[in-house]
């Protein structure tokens, strides 16, 4: 579906932003809704979501399936997602490559599983179950982590490549997650982008975060808290992705709190459009140079 459309830039749907989003649909080309917020919602709210999806392309984004795990995904949770998707008929749906519970204990948030061959296999099995129950493949999102996942044998990109090679799912590339992990664990995010199979990437997340200081042990980490403006290096990474791929990209800005005036969020969307345009222009320039070189030869 994504391939046939131009680049689109949009925003995460949050209740405090709803009125402003609806008033600015001429500048918001897609909205992303947290699916889990609607699992317990009454019928009229789910109908309202369906109506929203008729006004603007709508993506349902899951946060609690825990697909990246050696433990089987809970079919009851998948059923909730399947029913919501059936009612709302979103454009796309997505989930995180995270585990969120283990042995009956809820972690509370998205945790990075050990990056191993076993979690690649487990994730592939869970994604196959998801496709069977829901009827379509989710896009799968790389997550940020402030702890190096214990027991890992693979680096993040190798692990992501392994999952993409074992499945047919597209990658939802969260550039702030990638940037935060690069800051926290000292790797080059541009090199990571160069290694990723970008033909499987059609959807991007942007966000901001803050540095948090440990008190008991030395050091600090960049936390992807979605409460700050997208930093410039993340826009630069967006330009880099746009430069490296011909695929149309859907870009979503995530903001979960400490909301600024809405005009600032619209400015961030414009900054994302500018980064996409910069990347596309570089790509075109490189192709022209290549064509000229070939013609000269």
């Amino acid at each position, binding site marked *: 579906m994504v391939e046939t459309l131009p680049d689109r830039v949009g925003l995460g749907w949050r209740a405090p932003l709803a009125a402003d989003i609806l008033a600015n649909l001429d500048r918001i080309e897609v909205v992303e809704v947290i699916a889990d917020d609607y*699992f*317990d919602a*009454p019928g009229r709210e789910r109908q309202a979501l369906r109506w929203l999806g008729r006004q603007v392309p709508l993506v349902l984004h899951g946060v609690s399936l825990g697909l990246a*795990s*050696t*433990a089987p995904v809970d*079919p*009851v949770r998948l*059923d*909730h997602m399947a*029913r919501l998707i059936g009612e709302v008929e979103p454009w796309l749906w997505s989930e995180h490559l995270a*585990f969120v*519970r*283990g*042995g*009956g*204990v*809820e*972690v*509370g*948030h998205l*945790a990075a*599983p*050990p990056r*191993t061959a*076993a*979690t690649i296999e487990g994730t592939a099995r869970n994604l196959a179950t998801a496709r069977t*129950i829901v009827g379509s493949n989710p896009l799968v999102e790389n997550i940020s*982590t*402030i*702890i*190096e996942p*214990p*027991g890992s*044998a693979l680096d993040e990109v190798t692990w992501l490549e392994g999952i993409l090679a074992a499945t047919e799912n597209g990658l939802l590339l969260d550039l702030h997650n990638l940037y935060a992990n690069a800051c*926290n664990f000292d790797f080059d995010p541009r090199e990571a982008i160069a290694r990723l199979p970008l033909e499987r990437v059609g959807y991007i997340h942007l966000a901001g975060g803050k540095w*948090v200081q*440990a*008190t*008991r*042990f*030395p*050091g*600090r*980490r960049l*936390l992807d808290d979605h409460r700050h403006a997208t930093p410039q290096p993340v826009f630069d990474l967006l330009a880099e992705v746009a430069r490296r791929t011909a695929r149309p990209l859907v870009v979503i800005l995530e903001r979960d709190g400490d909301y600024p005036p809405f005009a600032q969020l619209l400015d961030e969307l414009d900054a994302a459009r500018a980064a996409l345009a910069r990347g596309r222009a570089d790509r075109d320039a490189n192709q022209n140079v290549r064509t000229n070189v070939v013609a000269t030869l």
Partner: protein
Amino acid sequence: MSSPHFEAFLARLYADEAFREQFLAAPENTARAFGLSPEECAALAAIDLTGLELAARVFAKKLDYKAEYKRRQGWRTRWRRWWRDRWAEWRHRRRTTLQAK
């Protein structure tokens, strides 16, 4: 390495403060007592402590927020969730039975 049991250990390490303190006092013993393999125990002995402290802090905040959100939900929402879960279980059983045939 990595199994549902190892993930269960990590989930408890991240979410259960008393268990985490016990682990920090004696990492390998705690992991061994949980039934993890020697390789898994060794991996946990070399855990990223700064990351563990910060991740546990973030997870605790999220768990508190979710607990508070659930506490504030009315009986209608709880009732809807209860029915929703029963329906989903029934549909799963039915799917499994049909697949077995």
